[in-house]
């Protein structure tokens, strides 16, 4: 168990990187506390797997340091870092039984047989695979294989961190939630620091205490699932998290108000900064309908089960609203009301309004 600290980390796959665009990872500074459950969330190619491989030691970063409990491990190989990693596709040793698979990392480290047996039995019981211990691992279903590869990580009691690289990709949808809750349960039992890489927001938000959202090699926001939803620091976070994502509407600023398609919108607080491109960000959940407000033309209404998603046009800008009760007809004229404490201005993508004092 350890606290993991990444300090001024940068990585480029090129031998001589020139500008920031040559870096797969740009300037990462994070501290993950011991025993926490974290998720790295971002679209494909955002650098999250690179970051994971740097933490596990499969890659050495171009610049910066990785500290496990203040011990510099930047150049240590994976087997000396005491980390465990679960890959996208289950990795199991085909010729071994389930039990031998679980015992393998301990055997390689020269642990005595009695301890191996005790640990393997413990982990097998935790993963509900006790009855499979003596079967050949090659014949197992993907979800059980993935459990075994997880088990190989957990079997060592000196693991600093367990890392998951999109571990549910090959699992059937109906088994995904089962494995996910198993993971959550395991985290509570073993109390190891866990880092979970995914591009699926549901997986990230349900698993993690804290989510690190990445885009193009940069960390855009670190926060609890609620923080990411309620107050995105970047339009990318707003758009990437939530279904449908946050409305990002081109606007101008005027004092502590935004002017969007000629309509003044009250914001959560005063804006700061100057110049750049300004956008008004508001989640569809906080766009309401009323008798007065911003006139809009409804183009489409989709019933997605629990609620309706209303697509509307204000002037030449399209936006979405989510409603549960009052459903306007497509083609009708409505008035939209933006919730002021959830209306924010983003300057060049980054948040530019101050939180209103409570």
């Amino acid at each position, binding site marked *: 168990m350890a606290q993991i600290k990444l300090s001024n980390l940068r990585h480029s796959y090129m031998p001589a990187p020139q500008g920031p665009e040559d870096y797969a990872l740009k300037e990462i500074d994070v501290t993950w506390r011991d025993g926490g459950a974290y998720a790295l969330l971002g679209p494909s190619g955002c650098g999250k797997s690179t970051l994971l491989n740097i933490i596990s030691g499969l890659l050495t970063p171009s610049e910066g340091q990785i500290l496990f409990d203040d011990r510099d491990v930047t150049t240590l*190989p994976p087997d000396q870092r005491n980390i465990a990693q679960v890959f996208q596709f289950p990795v199991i040793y085909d010729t071994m039984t389930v039990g031998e698979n679980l015992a393998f990392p301990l055997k390689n480290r020269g642990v005595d047989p009695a301890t191996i047996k005790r640990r393997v039995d413990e982990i097998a019981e935790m993963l509900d695979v006790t009855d499979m211990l003596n079967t050949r691992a090659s014949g197992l279903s993907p979800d059980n294989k993935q459990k075994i590869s997880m088990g190989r990580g957990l079997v060592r009691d000196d693991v600093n961190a367990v890392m998951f690289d999109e571990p549910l990709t090959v699992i059937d949808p109906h088994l995904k939630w089962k494995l996910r809750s198993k993971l959550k349960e395991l985290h509570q039992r073993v109390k190891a620091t866990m880092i979970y890489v995914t591009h699926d927001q549901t997986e990230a938000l349900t698993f993690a205490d804290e989510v690190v959202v990445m885009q193009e090699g940069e960390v855009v926001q670190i926060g609890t699932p609620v923080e990411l939803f309620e107050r995105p620091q970047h339009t990318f976070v707003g758009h990437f998290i939530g279904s449908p994502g946050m409305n990002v509407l081109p606007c101008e600023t005027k004092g502590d108000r935004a002017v969007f398609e000629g309509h003044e919108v009250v914001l959560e607080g005063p804006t700061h900064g100057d110049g750049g491109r300004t956008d008004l960000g508001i989640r569809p959940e906080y766009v309401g309908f009323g008798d007065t407000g911003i006139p809009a033309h409804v183009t489409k209404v989709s019933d997605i089960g629990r609620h309706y998603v209303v697509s509307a046009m204000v002037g030449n800008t399209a936006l979405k609203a989510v409603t549960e009760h009052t459903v306007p007809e497509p083609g009708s004229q409505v008035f939209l009301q933006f919730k002021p404490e959830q209306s924010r201005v983003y300057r060049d993508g980054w948040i530019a309004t101050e939180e209103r004092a409570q």
Partner: protein
Amino acid sequence: MRTENQKAWFFVLPVLALVAFNALVPMMTVVNYSVQETFGNNQFFWEGLGWFEQILRSDRFQAALGRQFLFTFMILLIEVPLGIIVALSMPRKGFWVPVCLVLMALPMLIPWNVVGSMWNIFTLPKIGLMGYFLNDVLGINYDMTQQPLSAWITVIVMDVWHWTSLVVLLCYAGLVSIPDAYYQAAKIDGASPWSVFRYIQLPKMKTVLTIAVLLRFMDSFNIYTEPFVLTGGGPGNSTTLLSIDLVKIALGQFDLGPAAAMSLIYFAITLLVSWVFYTLMTKDDAQ
């Protein structure tokens, strides 16, 4: 309701006819010869299983069979491990991959009799590059035309030179199909290079290795041209393998009956060994 329709068989007919003419009919002719005796004039007399008994009891056949097994065993013993080692040391990506692959494929593209002639000229004691080098530079007494041991070594080295590439290419195909995650997981699990080979690479190569061993067994067991061109079966009978002996009986002495019986025994042995080996190797997968 599922309706049965046998019309598809008509599509198989042309192939069946073709196979009948180039395999079944010649094969049956051999069976025919193997149970009869002829003194020319197209007159045949029933012989029963006599030829089979005579062949199986003959010292000549037993000696040739022994040499054949020894030869096949030796080349498998060398080519399979060597092929695995070469495949393991080949690069996985980059500029050298195609270069290595082409170099590996080259020996296999050379016709058998050319390989035989090449090695013959190469190893002749006085004029061949290797023969000259061994005798006159290193002072090793080497003469594959006179000494059985030299002849054996030459025949085996020639086959290794010609066919190890096949094992290499098949193993290489098996190796490159292993996802990176396996190697990464092994690193994290603290596996030694030997464990990586034993538990990841070897199991993943098992299928291609089975095929490689089968192909090398069948080819080497039926080998004819190369040793025939190189040593002609000599010195004496020391490198007379089964096929060379068979041709001597069939075309040299024109003993059609015994030759036919021998071919069938030869064929049965090849088939039996291949079948037993394949069954053993794939037994685990069926479980």
